[in-house]
């Protein structure tokens, strides 16, 4: 606040205005009456928020349609110039012109307050053009048709409950988070087979299993395939979470489901560390925990599909787990109850993941078709292959950590 004469802790008298973000009552009435009081000219004014602009655009529009033929902004121009910056004036003029062209009478009725309807229509159309591109009309029609199909239940889902349309929506929603917030870098995408089954095995971290979502997004975006994650049963017993998980392609991590997915040529993803991985303290970051019991190797061997080791760097830093409340977690039936530097200290704000830099590397596939499917019953072989995959991921993690440098910048 640059007004240092104001009493501390008070915003001054109501309607006084603060010269910076909102004009005073007097200034507003003057502007409405036609002669604007020019606020103190500061360079800051250019970035002034839209509120005053919108207020002053309204009278301009009120007057415009009455002299529809003439350029509507001409008489107002000096006034508008006086109170708003160039951009706002141009926008208001364009909006008024468009409105006058579209609805001859809409502006004639005096609008005492609020935004006129025609302006909303124009804004919607412009927004549609901006969001959907110039062929927005056909695209909006497609969108409506999709909504209609969804509402009538006319869509296909597979036996696992996977709904490709919802997966598309989720992928689009994650894109900005992955690319802008986490600055995701994907390596070795060519190691994902273009067709046929494969088992992606990844390290698990981050308190909340966001790495599964981001890996799914990376596979869809860069390899053009749907990743079918295998999740713990806790996921499917939680309301909403379980429902959404099934719709975006997840299913229970059990032998039957893994083999069913792999033999039908799907790309399944497992995080063998499970809750041990995501619930480990921040101090143990990037140290792989126990890698399941080798179940994923036996599934891949039975289905004769390659195992792709996936190393994910960056997920450890999103919610640094510095504490745990085991007793409360037990009470709630959860594997752990996380305490991070910002949660629960900052409440919901603490749920915002920290913007760490992410690298996902898809490693060279471990082939299992050299073994007989019966080899899946040989525990020693399973442990060896499990260790091989685990070591590959661990070494890649160290390498990627060096490559990434600072976790956040």
């Amino acid at each position: 606040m640059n007004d240092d004469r104001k009493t501390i802790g008070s915003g001054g008298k109501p309607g006084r205005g603060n010269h910076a973000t909102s004009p005073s009552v007097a200034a507003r009435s003057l502007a409405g009456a036609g002669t604007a009081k020019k606020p103190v000219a500061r360079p800051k004014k250019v970035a002034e928020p839209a509120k005053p602009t919108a207020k002053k655009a309204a009278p301009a529009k009120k007057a415009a349609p009455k002299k529809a033929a003439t350029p509507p902004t001409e008489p107002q121009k000096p006034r508008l110039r006086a109170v708003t910056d160039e951009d706002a004036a141009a926008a208001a003029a364009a909006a008024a012109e468009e409105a006058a062209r579209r609805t001859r009478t809409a502006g004639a009725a005096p609008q005492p307050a609020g935004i006129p309807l025609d302006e909303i229509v124009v804004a919607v159309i412009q927004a549609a053009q901006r969001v959907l591109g110039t062929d927005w009309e056909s695209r909006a029609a497609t969108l409506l048709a999709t909504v209609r199909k969804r509402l009538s239940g006319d869509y296909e889902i597979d036996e696992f409950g996977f709904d490709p349309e919802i997966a598309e929506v989720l992928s689009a929603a994650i894109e900005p988070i992955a690319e802008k917030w986490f600055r995701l870098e994907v390596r070795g995408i060519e190691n994902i087979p273009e067709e046929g089954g494969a088992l992606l095995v990844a390290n698990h971290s981050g308190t909340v299993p966001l790495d599964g979502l981001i890996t799914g997004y990376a596979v869809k975006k860069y390899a053009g395939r749907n990743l079918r994650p295998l999740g713990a049963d806790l996921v499917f017993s939680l309301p909403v979470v379980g429902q959404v998980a099934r719709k975006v392609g997840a299913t229970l991590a059990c032998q039957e489901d893994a083999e069913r997915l792999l033999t039908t040529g799907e790309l399944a993803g497992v995080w063998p560390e499970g809750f041990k991985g995501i619930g480990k303290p921040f101090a143990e970051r990037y140290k792989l925990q126990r890698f399941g019991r080798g179940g994923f190797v036996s599934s891949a061997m039975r289905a004769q599909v390659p195992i792709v080791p996936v190393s994910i760097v960056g997920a450890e830093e999103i919610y640094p787990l510095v504490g745990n409340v085991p007793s409360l977690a037990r009470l709630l039936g959860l594997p752990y109850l996380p305490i991070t530097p910002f949660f629960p200290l900052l409440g919901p704000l603490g749920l915002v993941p920290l913007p760490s830099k992410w690298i996902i590397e898809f490693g060279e596939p471990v082939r299992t078709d050299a073994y007989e499917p019966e080899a899946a019953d040989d525990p020693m072989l399973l442990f060896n292959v499990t260790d091989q995959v685990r070591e590959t991921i661990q070494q890649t993690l160290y390498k990627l950590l060096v490559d990434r440098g600072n976790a956040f910048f």
Partner: protein
Amino acid sequence: MSRVILVTGVAGSFASLVARRLADLGEDAGIDKVVGIDTILPDADLGGVKFVRADVRTPVIGKVIAVEDVDTVVHLDVNPPQRGRASGKELNVIGTMQLLAACQRSTTVGKLVLGSSAAVYGSSSRDPAMFSESLLARSGVRSGFPKDIVEVESYVRGFARRRPDVIITTIRAAQVLHADIDTPLRNYFSNPVLPSVLGFDPRLQFLALDDALEIFSQAVLHDRPGTFNAAGDGIVLLSQAARRLGRPLLPLPPFGFAAAARRFVRAMGSDIPPDLHRLLTYGRALDTSALRDIFGYDLTRTSEQTLDDFRQSIRPGILTALGGRA
């Protein structure tokens, strides 16, 4: 060879249709006589079926088998308890015990077809996506009808051990969805508003009536020992089914859903069994490859088509205009 077939529970809507169909096949298929028994008089016209009013819970059943020289027993109408009928547990479990005891004593019985239910797999969050016949229930069979059906199947397995010469076919069928067949899901979907569990969208499967009848007739006519799942291919989510039927879902909190939903459905003049809530929470899907490959029956209708047939035979839902399906 002429055969005499005993069908239990013929007062039930599905069992009466099976009995009727077997009777209609008649001499051409080598069926001499079809005897139907139940404790109450059937509503439906049984055609050529000989009806015997007897209680499967009493040893009378043994006399019926002996007098009629029954060689094939089709044990049907193992159903969830309903309002207005004697307690389901008695009928289902004790009835099966008596029936099996009579079969074991009989020298003529050579085949048993059990109309089991997919409820034997239970329903929980730990379920695999698809149940095949070799899998066991993970959870959700500790009470109510699923517990009954698990017990019924275990008695039948015991019977199979004691009488290895009898051919036993167990059909684990998903619920038949048809306007005339009284099943819990039909009653549920007939309501104008469908109570659902908040935050859960179960995967459901339905069996078409024609498919179900055909499977049971084939099991009687041919020798198909073993256990087979029967359900329409594909799955339908509850939300999807509700939209197709044009009926709004009413999400209720999971805690106390069973009681609330039942009360709500009763207020709408219908009834659902208390253990349906597990199915409405977690859903269940069956793998029917054994039915196709070993039993040798290709299902004609998918779950989706069955639902569509059902939709056309009931009153349109109140949201039908919104969905655009007449």
